């Protein structure tokens, strides 16, 4: 079971609200009012949280966006890219559909499985749970950036060595969560490793091999 209280994935912004009964998330709410034509005059991004972030980036603050697609700049994997997105598009959509970075997977599209984990200003987030606009002015790192100059990140190599992927669909999200763990805690214990991926769902059951892979990298770092 997903243990929300144990989930170490600090959300840089307030966690989007989700009302189980009506099934309305902020994102869907925005989508639905757009559908009903209430946003035809566009929306002014206010200083607080109108689009899911308590601290909208400077670049879109006080700008009118939507309902049509608009041009924004996203900094992804160290490169600034201009893309045309609708306000309702999630960061995951933007990465996959506009930037063709399909390593980021979407499996539940509601923040329950962490397959879509990317780092936002170095902190893991579920990219299906935030709008692309909210990532403007911030640093997004995806699985595609983990290997540097063709050289695998030690975790990637350890995942290969320990057969830590089966179907592989959860692997990018797992790796991003683990990479953040090692960055902030280079010598984790087994329970800290478990904690770091407690929000990442794997249905094939690769967990035991992932535990070994991460601990091996940590151990190697220690010996260095």
């Amino acid at each position, binding site marked *: *079971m997903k243990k929300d209280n144990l989930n170490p994935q600090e959300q840089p912004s307030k966690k989007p609200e989700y009302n189980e009964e009506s099934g309305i998330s902020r994102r869907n709410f925005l989508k639905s009012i757009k559908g009903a034509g209430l946003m035809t005059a566009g929306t002014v991004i206010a200083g607080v949280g109108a689009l899911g972030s308590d601290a909208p980036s400077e670049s879109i603050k006080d700008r009118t966006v939507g309902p049509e697609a608009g041009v924004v700049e996203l900094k992804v994997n160290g490169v600034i890219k201009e893309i045309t997105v609708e306000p309702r598009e999630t960061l995951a959509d933007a990465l996959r*559909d506009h930037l063709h970075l399909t390593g*980021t997977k979407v499996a539940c599209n509601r923040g329950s499985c962490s397959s879509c984990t990317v780092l936002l200003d170095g902190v893991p987030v579920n990219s299906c749970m935030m709008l692309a606009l909210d990532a403007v002015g911030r640093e997004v790192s995806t699985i595609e950036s983990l290997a540097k100059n063709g050289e695998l990140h030690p975790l990637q190599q350890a995942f290969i060595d320990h*057969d830590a*992927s089966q*179907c592989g669909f959860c692997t990018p999200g797992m790796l991003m969560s683990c990479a953040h763990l090692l960055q902030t805690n280079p010598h984790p214990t087994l329970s800290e490793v478990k904690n770091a991926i407690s929000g990442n769902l794997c249905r094939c*059951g690769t967990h035991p091999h992932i535990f070994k892979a991460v601990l091996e990298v940590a151990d190697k770092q220690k010996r260095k």
Partner: protein
Amino acid sequence: MDMQRIERALEKLKRAVGIGMKRVTMPHGIPGHNLTQIEREVPQEEPPAWPTNDKLSVVGKNVKRIDAHAKVTGSAKYTADIRLPGMLFGKMLCSHHPHVRIRSVDTTAAERLPGVAAVHLFGMTDSKDDGGQGEYPEITFAGQPIAGVAAQSLQIAEEAVKLIRVEYKKLPFVVDLEEAQKPGAPAVIAIEAKEGNNLLGPWYSKPRGNIKTGFSEADLIIERTYKTQVQHHCCLETHGVVVDYRNDGVTIYASTQSTKNVRDEFAKAFGLPANRVRVICEFMGGGFGSKIKPGPSAVMAGFLSRKTGRPVSLMLDRREEFLSAGNRPNSLQHLKIGARKDGTLTAVELHSRGTAGVASDSGVGHVARSLYRCPNFYSEHYTVLTNAGPSTPFRAPGNVQGCFAVEQLMDELAEKLELDPLELRDRCDKSETRRLERLRGAEMFGWSRRRAAGSDTVIVKKGLGMAQALWPKFLDLDSSAEVLLLKDGGIEVRSGVQDIGTGTKTVLAQVVAEELGLQPEAITVRIGDTLFPDGPTSEGSKVTGSITPAARNAAYKAKRQLFEQVAETLGAEASELVAAEGRIFSKNEPSKKIAFQEALKMMKRARISATATRSENYEGKPVSEDLGAVQFAEVSVDTETGIVNVERIVTVNSCGRPINIAQIESQIEGAVIQGVSYALYENRVMDAATGHQMNANLQQYQLPFSMEIPEIEIVLIESYDAATSTDAVGIGEPPIIATAPAIANAVYNAIGVRIYELPITPDKVLKALNKI
């Protein structure tokens, strides 16, 4: 099919009279236990037998998964990642009601929405769907697809679906197994309804002997009722396709367990010859049985692509995946076993029911019939129709449910007969393999620590339990592989077979490399494409056992052709050449040698191509059902909260000739984790009043995350059947079967009260302890 049958009959006839056959000495049995060499009659064109794995260089070794690099870098392209030029996104309208007749459908508003390219109604032919004149299909569960939209973006398609207006006539419905059987229950499928009867069946697992006599001979009879729940596959990649329908042929990218099934069924649905349909599955994000057939989304995407002349991507969303893409049926089993004081079983009787929603297959009798082969056996099973999504096969279908009942009852029987559960099984289980598995497992697990049930006096009580299972060695004779040797040095193995995460690509590279005396890195593996010879469907754990002999035999054939072409240069006979350690040399004069790569350059033409198809098992040997596992579980049960924690599982598995140890371990761990999850967490919750699933998402449908993963220890029993040129078998399903009953028995051992219903949630534990 007929040609195949004739070929098979011819093959058998030839074998019977010994035409085209040779005698081959092969390893047989379990190393370190009863390994011997035996002779088998083998088709002439097949390679000589491999020795046991300790004498091989690549097979049985921990070769790294060859597509792992693509998976860890995010470059692996799954169906959900396919983006073709001009591609549209599809979305289906799924029924919000569990049982309705559609009166009319108005798609005007959806069609007018800017960005929408096409709308298609299900069950309607192209000519009728715009006029709404035809007969609409009866909708029999909430979530059943009705219509589909293709649009420039997924967002537009989702919006368009909401604009489709459907007028329904609501019909009565029922979603509960027990309610659906009551007199006067609503007919689940109105058009097929027999008077107040939602039952299909009965089905019988082949009976044996006479249970009446059997029970009269028993000193002790136990009968109990067991309940298991509906379980969802929850593959991380949902069902989906990208269909590119063109006049000269269709290309389909599919997240599937069978490229050939998608091809054949799509071709049938569209009246096309199968060779006009190409199906590609390079990577797929999990199936577990649910992706054996293409499903409605493939057909819908086909219609939308045909209408628009553009490729259409149609992936189910998570909710649709829960509602319509399959599940493991539940079960209500009444099991009765009679035994003598010495532990001999005298009769086994099973009456069971299960609901597969609007599908028909929910049988559970195999374990009861075959695990202990009691001479007197009878079973009867009914499938109960309910207005819920259809079941699909799920990892060891039927066996997982059946084993939960049989192995708990055996545990109870052992206690009543005052026998250790292992001792009882030693007395009534005829399998030599499982006897060995029990022995090795008990030692590793520390079974001798087990105390009488409920001995612990503290709040968090510890318990130990065990259970066992069996699984047949299924095979798919329509399994072929092609091996190419290319003059420029390339070596390639090709097959239509898909790798669903089990490691098929790696296994193929290993088998071909071993045969050619090379390392796996030298082999290019191209699979998951129906342009290549048909491979097996990924079901029944039969892929490795079906495709590896074909691949090895194809490599052997190609190698022989290469030998013919280089023999003269080496000054040796082709028949005396061998390939090993990257070289080809004469076994009589090893100095006559050439590097394998150099030999390729000497080829007379650009390529050597050899294809082989899986032959029948040698001498038609039926192989044992000894693939199951013996499993031991250690649990702790908090008697104040009711929470069960599985601390450790020891699983002992017979695994044929293991090709890749790490991948086998991965499969076993995955199966055990799904078994733990089945035992403790997973459960589809249906609302009887609305007919809706209440937890059709990955948050409320309970699954194990990292915190719930027990320590898993694996013992592999290498074993040789002398049945094929590789003697390999698949291992995906057998290790899930015994997990839930082993845990249930351990829970009983901890608290001294037995729980007969899955999942074993805190409320059930507290109820059992009379605390709520």
